[in-house]
């Protein structure tokens, strides 16, 4: 795995104010096909909220997504990447910090997000047909 963070990051990150609702963030995640919303205050990156955060900090806690604000649940302690960072550095941060998404910042401005999926799936290979199991194989199995 080689290359720079700029080559694998998702650019044009979704940015929202801390006063926006969790419900609005969920809709943005759905419409934009992302799992992370960067929380930006006064032009600066304040933190981020992931789909997982919404599940654990809102749904599991019975909080109302319409009235809960991103500012109430966002993660502020962030490890940051630069677009020029090596992909290996990003992978090391993901492992060491046990995080799945890292904001990419250039000159103080959020320019992207790197997710663990971008790292693990950053390669090309083919899948032999024989190992693909469809629903006919899986349906009907009774889990322990």
């Amino acid at each position, binding site marked *: *795995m080689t290359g720079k963070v700029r080559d694998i990051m998702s650019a044009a990150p979704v940015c929202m104010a801390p006063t926006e609702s*969790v*419900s609005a963030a*969920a*809709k943005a*995640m*759905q419409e934009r096909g992302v*799992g992370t919303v960067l929380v930006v205050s006064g032009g600066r990156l304040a933190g981020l909220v992931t*789909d*997982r955060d*919404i*599940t*654990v900090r*809102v*749904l*599991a806690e*019975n909080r109302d*997504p319409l009235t809960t604000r991103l500012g109430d649940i966002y993660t502020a302690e962030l490890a940051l990447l630069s677009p020029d960072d090596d992909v*290996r550095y990003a*992978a*090391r941060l*993901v*492992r060491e910090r046990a995080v*799945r998404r890292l904001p990419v910042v250039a000159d103080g401005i959020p320019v992207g997000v790197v997710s*663990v*999926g971008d*790292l*693990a*799936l*950053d*390669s*090309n*290979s*083919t*899948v032999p047909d024989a*190992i*693909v*199991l*469809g*629903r006919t*194989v*899986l*349906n*009907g*199995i*009774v*889990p*322990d």
Partner: protein
Amino acid sequence: MNAKVRDVMTPGPIGVDYYQSIGTAARTMRDWGVGAVLVVSDQALYGLVTDRDLVVRAVAESKGPDEPVGPLSSRDLVGVHADDDAAVAVALMREHAVGRLPVLEDGQVAGIVSVADLDPLAPPDEV
């Protein structure tokens, strides 16, 4: 690295019933520290639901936490064998654009392997 799927999967998959609530599914994911649970209906595997599914299929659609979780499930599941190389799981995830695969062993679901379980530092051709 020639890790097998069984070496990297999360064993003992957690299940919820189709009619259990979205809130219960969220608390199950929180309490067990997992991002996906199997959905069971009539004692058979119905599908799989992830933390992301709860957000984009429930919160984004203004569904409340008391509604049943079953309808949020993904049903066309792609599985992988516990004895397969981890590289096979990577390839399947890429091919089908999914982040998690149920892991089969002896005709049962033995675990779930997530994209986050796979080693991001391993060279692609040796994952």
